[in-house]
C-alpha cells in the first residue's frame, strides 16, 4: 500500500510566523499535488509538481518536490489568518487513474 504521511497533523501559529508542512513517502510519484480545504468546502488545487527538485512559488507559498520524487514540502512565509485550513498532499503514479492522499495538516493562523 502506498502511503503519504503528512506532518505535522496540526499546527497553530501566530500571524506573521513562517511554517513548513511535510509530505513523505517511501514510494516514487510521477506528480504531487497540494490542495487547501476550508470548512464546508471541497479541496482546492494549489499546485502540481512533476520534476524532482522542482520548486514552485505561489505568492507567499513555496512548494518543493524532493529530488527522488518521494517527498514534498510546503513553506508559508508570514502566515495570515486567511491561510487557515486543511492542507492535503496527493501523489499520482504514471498512468494510474487514482491519487494517493495524505491525511492532511490542519493549520490555524491566529490574528
Amino acid at each position, binding site marked *: 500500500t502506498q502511503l503519504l504521511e503528512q506532518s505535522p497533523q496540526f499546527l497553530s501559529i501566530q500571524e506573521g510566523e513562517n511554517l513548513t508542512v511535510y509530505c513523505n513517502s517511501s514510494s516514487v510519484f*510521477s506528480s504531487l499535488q497540494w490542495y487547501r480545504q476550508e470548512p464546508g*468546502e*471541497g*479541496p482546492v*488545487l494549489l499546485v502540481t509538481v512533476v520534476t524532482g527538485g522542482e520548486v514552485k512559488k505561489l505568492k507567499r507559498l513555496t512548494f518543493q518536490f524532493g529530488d527522488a520524487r518521494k517527498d514534498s514540502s510546503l513553506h508559508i512565509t508570514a502566515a495570515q489568518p486567511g491561510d487557515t485550513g486543511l492542507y492535503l498532499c*496527493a501523489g499520482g503514479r504514471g498512468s494510474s*487513474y487514482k491519487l494517493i492522499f495524505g*491525511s*492532511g495538516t490542519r493549520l490555524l493562523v491566529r490574528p
Partner: protein
Amino acid sequence: DAGITQSPRHKVTETGTPVTLRCHQTENHRYMYWYRQDPGHGLRLIHYSYGVKDTDKGEVSDGYSVSRSKTEDFLLTLESATSSQTSVYFCAIRNGAGVNEQFFGPGTRLTVL
C-alpha cells in the same frame, strides 16, 4: 473554478433507506471520482469512472454503487444506508490529459441515523 455541482448538499436519512447522490460537471471531463472524507482517514476513493458506462471500484467500495449514463453526471448510490456511511462525500473530475490533477465539488454531508 471547475464547473462541478453536487446535490443534495446536505441529507439526513434513516438506516436501511436508499440514498443517491449526484455529481454534475459542465467541463466535459472524462474522469469522475467519488470520495468520502472522515476524521482520521482523510480522503478515500469509493468508485471512479473513466468514461460513460465505464466504472471501477476504489478502496472503500463496499455498500456503494455508481452509474454514469452521460459524460456530465456521475451518481453514487447507497442501496441500504448504514450509520457507518455517515460522512462527507466529494466528487472530483479530471480531464485525462497528462498529469492527474483532480478538481473537487463542494461536497455532500450525509447523516445516517
